[in-house]
């Protein structure tokens, strides 16, 4: 059997703060998680005075002033992806971020629009 440790960072790479402390114990978003490459952007809505945002949530909201994706945001903040998804879900529920629509071939599969694929193909061939 393959050693299970093969892609695990192990304790020496572990976070200083236990990751789910940042999400107050939640291990998944309340709603469906955003796609890893969904384009998210901050809305113009100001943060409600009654809304408490953690430092990490503020950082994510700040980064979302330019459109970004959960994968990019996780990489940029060095927070675990799952944690970022939960915090982004909070920001979405507070009306502070929104997802920009993208062209897809069909809603069912979510596969990319063929014209975008052709553009990508041109770009890849030029690499």
């Amino acid at each position, binding site marked *: 059997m*393959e050693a*299970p440790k*093969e*892609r*695990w*960072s*192990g304790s020496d*790479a*572990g*976070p200083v703060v236990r*990751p*789910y402390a940042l999400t107050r*114990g*939640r*291990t*998944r978003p*309340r709603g469906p*998680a955003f*796609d*890893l*490459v*969904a*384009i998210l*952007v*901050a*809305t*113009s809505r100001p943060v409600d005075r009654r809304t408490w945002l953690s430092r990490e949530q503020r950082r994510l909201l700040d980064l*979302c*002033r*330019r*459109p970004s*994706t959960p*994968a*990019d945001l*996780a*990489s940029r903040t*060095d927070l*675990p*992806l*799952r944690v970022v998804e939960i915090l982004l879900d909070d920001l979405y529920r507070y009306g502070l971020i929104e997802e*920009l*629509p*993208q*062209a*897809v071939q069909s809603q069912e*599969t*979510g*596969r*990319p*629009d*063929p014209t*975008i*694929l*052709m*553009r*990508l*193909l041109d*770009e*890849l061939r030029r*690499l």
Partner: protein
Amino acid sequence: MNFAVYDSSAPGPDDDVPRHTLKILVAGGFGVGKTTLVGAVSEVRPLRTEEVLTDASVGTDDLGGIESKATTTVAMDFGRLTFSGGVRLYLFGTPGQERFWFMWDRLSQGAIGAIVLVDTRRLSRSFASIDFFEARRIPFVVAANVFDGARPYRAEDIREALCVARDVPVMLCDVRRPDAAKNILVTLVEHAVRR
């Protein structure tokens, strides 16, 4: 679409703003070259996720009082290629073992397709990932990384050994070479467009 809300005074050209984000999965066992492949064509970025591996059947979001649940860090190979017009291609390499398939499910939703990277010395290890993509009708290509010391195979031998359909591209490559990685990507996207 409303692009007025983000800070246009922030640095970076317009191409830096994603408008079309696309993803490709790179599947393969440990040491087969996923990291090398991703790194050959894109800047590799750190990406990790903390997964609770024992909660598949638990219907609660709350970990309070259930301290015995184990979380584990899963490191993914994550690369990004940025093109003009806000087109971005993201590559995600994930561990090949079946217990990580819940991650593959999410990654493959809406993906262009997958690259199944195989080691010709351990072909049988690729059966499960090929089954995964076939069952979900996700376009994929098989890329056999040619290692030093591996017996020289032909692509057709590998196709036969893996029992993949004739329309699935099977290629031999050395993923350390940037042009090889590029060819795999082009082949996959062409294959996905045909589907």
